[in-house]
């Protein structure tokens, strides 16, 4: 059984040629017209030029993963083609202009640039491309035109009507191709999804943060994490949020800790290099038992690496960064919904356990999206964990749970004393060995209670499978679709969104499988190593990718077939 969901359209051009506008316009129009959509983009670490592209999948059922195969390719310039060559197959229809495409197979010739110029300017090329897709997909034209009008509403009337015309011009070409049976696309529409949401992982995280009560963000820009800083900054008009661009990452994490100390719910967002710089501060959070939420959006390293590409290469850093020993929680959302709900939850967990919570995403998660039905900002109940202090308040009281009631300065009569040195219950420096051990033990038992309410890892398929595929974080949907495509009932899938502490059922789950295959976007199987460190179990095979590209469904299908 070959199980392909809908079609994939790839639009490509230079940075600055409006590929992002195309993506936004087209996915919105399609969704409003009742199509399920998925979109992800890939782009170079530069501002203009180069070759960027966006993949849009359109389907009559939910579609949520990246595929290599391109059904329709609309390149707006030549460079784009070169880069996409490996993905162009015999079934790929290329739409565009021979003037820059040259001699290619399966060409639907549309003189996009010419048509745009006829409208008065080359810049309408991208909107024409949107129109072509709409035409091919038989989109409701009025809806498309309305959307274009709203989209450009800030612009001059003339520009608005030119854009509407561009859509029409493109639409006609697309419809022609359909009418002449050059292409035949049978994707049915589903009216029930018209009110669905379209938002990428970065936005879902920042919405999850505000749902979790986040009211302070301090960060230093770094791709691909900046999306979260930007989207929280944009909300400071409507919401009580302080957003500050720090001079460096070290300042950012220390500000966040100061903010929690004074009663805020603070977060930082960064990428690998910035996180490395923050690890001293992470260790400080461990020592002073400060809550803090840290969003680490991974990109390929080491060092500067590939700033705008994706990887899951910083798990080991998230697990072990920072000197000394202290508890932490690591979460890797697998879906847009989880980006929202788990981020929301992270603020409660950080506050309750007084530990750093690291949200581990990657460029792919940040920049991808698909339609989801809804997000409920009150579904996760927000709990508040600081107390009003009395005169005799001691910040680091020894308790059985390991959690000492947390006061904040200015609320109650007590003094709140926190110290990065080893300290006694009052927060004063100590060199007493017994006190040291008591405080260490107290800190290290804080998460013992965490297990009781811990979400089970997602499990699909037989409980004693022939092959168990293990994944974490952003590979979820690609694995799901790949397993569906392979269509072998003996394959099961377990997926981790809460990485650390590792769910205690892990050993049992893995032991029940004949063969364990792990999928990770890194070169050394960091999660596999971590599972082995925790359970002793070695995965039987690894499916790894570390080129900087996300896993495609085909990547996993191909390797899975080799492994079963």
């Amino acid at each position: 059984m070959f199980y392909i969901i809908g079609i994939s359209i790839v639009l490509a051009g230079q940075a600055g040629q409006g590929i992002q506008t195309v993506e936004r316009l087209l996915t919105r129009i399609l969704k409003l017209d009742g199509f399920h959509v998925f979109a992800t983009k890939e782009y170079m670490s530069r501002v203009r030029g180069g070759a960027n592209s966006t993949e849009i999948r359109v389907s009559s059922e939910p579609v949520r993963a990246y595929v290599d195969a391109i059904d329709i390719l609309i390149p707006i310039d030549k460079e784009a083609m070169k880069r996409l060559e490996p993905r162009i197959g015999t079934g790929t229809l290329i739409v565009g202009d021979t003037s820059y495409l040259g001699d290619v197979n399966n060409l639907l010739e549309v003189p996009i640039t010419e048509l745009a110029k006829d409208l008065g300017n080359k810049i309408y090329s991208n909107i024409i491309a949107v129109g072509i897709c709409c035409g091919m997909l038989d989109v409701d034209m009025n809806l498309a035109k309305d959307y274009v009008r709203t989209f450009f509403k800030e612009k001059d009337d003339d520009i608005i009507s030119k854009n509407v015309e561009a859509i029409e011009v493109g639409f006609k070409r697309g419809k022609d191709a359909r009418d002449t049976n050059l292409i035949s696309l049978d994707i049915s529409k589903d009216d029930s999804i018209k009110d669905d949401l379209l938002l990428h992982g970065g936005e879902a995280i920042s919405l999850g943060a505000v749902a979790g009560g986040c009211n302070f963000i301090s960060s230093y820009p770094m791709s691909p994490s900046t999306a979260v800083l930007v989207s929280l900054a944009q909300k400071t008009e409507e919401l009580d949020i302080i957003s500050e661009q720090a001079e460096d990452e070290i300042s950012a994490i220390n500000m966040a800790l100061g903010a929690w100390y004074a009663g805020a719910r603070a977060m930082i967002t960064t990428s690998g290099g910035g996180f490395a710089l923050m690890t001293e501060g992470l260790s400080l959070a461990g020592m002073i038992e400060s809550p803090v939420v840290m969003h680490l959006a991974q990109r390929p390293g080491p060092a500067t690496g590939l700033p705008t590409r994706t990887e899951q290469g910083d798990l080991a850093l998230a697990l072990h960064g920072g000197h000394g020993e202290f508890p932490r929680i690591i979460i890797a959302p697998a879906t847009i919904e989880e980006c929202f709900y788990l981020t929301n939850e992270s603020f409660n967990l950080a506050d309750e356990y007084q530990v750093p919570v690291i949200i581990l995403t990657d460029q792919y998660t940040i920049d991808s999206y698909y339609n989801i039905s809804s997000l409920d900002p009150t579904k996760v109940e927000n709990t508040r964990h600081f107390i009003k202090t009395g005169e005799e308040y001691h910040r680091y009281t020894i308790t059985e749970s390991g959690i000492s009631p947390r006061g904040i300065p200015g609320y109650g009569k007590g003094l709140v004393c926190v110290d990065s040195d080893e300290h006694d219950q009052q927060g004063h420096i100590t060199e007493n060995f017994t006190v040291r051990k008591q405080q260490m033990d107290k800190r290290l038992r804080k998460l013992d209670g965490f297990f009781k309410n811990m979400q089970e890892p997602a499990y699909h398929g037989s409980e004693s499978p022939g092959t168990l595929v293990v994944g974490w974080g952003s590979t979820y949907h690609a694995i799901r679709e790949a397993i569906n495509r392979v269509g072998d009932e003996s394959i099961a899938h377990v997926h981790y969104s809460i990485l650390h502490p590792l769910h205690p059922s892990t050993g049992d789950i893995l032991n029940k499988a004949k063969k364990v295959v792990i999928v990770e976007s890194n070169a050394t199987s960091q999660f596999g190593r971590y599972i082995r460190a925790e359970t002793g179990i070695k995965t039987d095979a690894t499916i790894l990718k570390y080129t900087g590209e996300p896993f495609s469904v085909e990547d996993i299908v191909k390797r899975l077939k080799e492994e079963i």
Partner: protein
Amino acid sequence: MDVKDYDIGDIDMAWCPGCGNFSIIKIIKRSLAELEITPSDVVFVSGIGQAAKLPHYLKCNFFNGLHGRSVPVATAIKATNPRLTVIADSGDGCNYGEGGNHFIHGIRRNPDLLHLVHDNMIYGLTKGQASPTSMKGMVTPVQVDGVILEPFNPLTTAIALNASFVARAYCGDQDKAVDIVKEAIQHEGYALVDMLQPCPSFNEINTYKWYKENTYYLEDDHDRTDRSKAFEVATDLDRLALGVLYTREKPTFEGQQQVYSKEQTPLWKRGQHDPDTLRELIKKHRD
């Protein structure tokens, strides 16, 4: 309030006999008492070093964080709860060495802080290496041929950054130091007090005697608003000027935050964000 109200009781102080830090803590207590600031309304933020231990010896809230990082922490505390009196209090190594970048950018932000730097021109706690303010030629176990780097001048730098309050005090002269510190606390905006402090254990050059001989107080008619003049005064390393060299009124960091445009309530008192607003924000993603 009385100076005694800040006493913490019996605590082992880790400073060496004769250290300038003993005077500094007195100066701080007197300043706070004279300004009638309740201990529970003050937050001291320090880094690591001998100076940075000060908050432990005082009745106050404190955040004794990492070496070099007190300014960002203090800035965030003040922004989160502007009702608190926040004092960033640490050594010269902490503030001008490890924390140099925060010094610069902290000044640019202009949070309403007292930034008190115990400037003993040495790394005390780590046993006598040069600090950024150590004088040229000072021999230490690490600077075996003597310091060759141009000493860091915190005052010229702060004036260059257009800091809103720039002062130098000397802990050996408590009365005058109290005046300066009080003024700095009352000043709305970032206030640097570079507090000259002898370190009898490691700094044999900048002794009580040396400070006496190499400092002078600014005249009453010194025009604090004259940036060029203040700069010129601050460049003089042979005779170190004491007093408030430069001030400039400007809006504070926290004062300019959108969150305080309508109400002054500290963030912790505000509760969660309004769910309806969140729902609206989410709905926007329908198209």
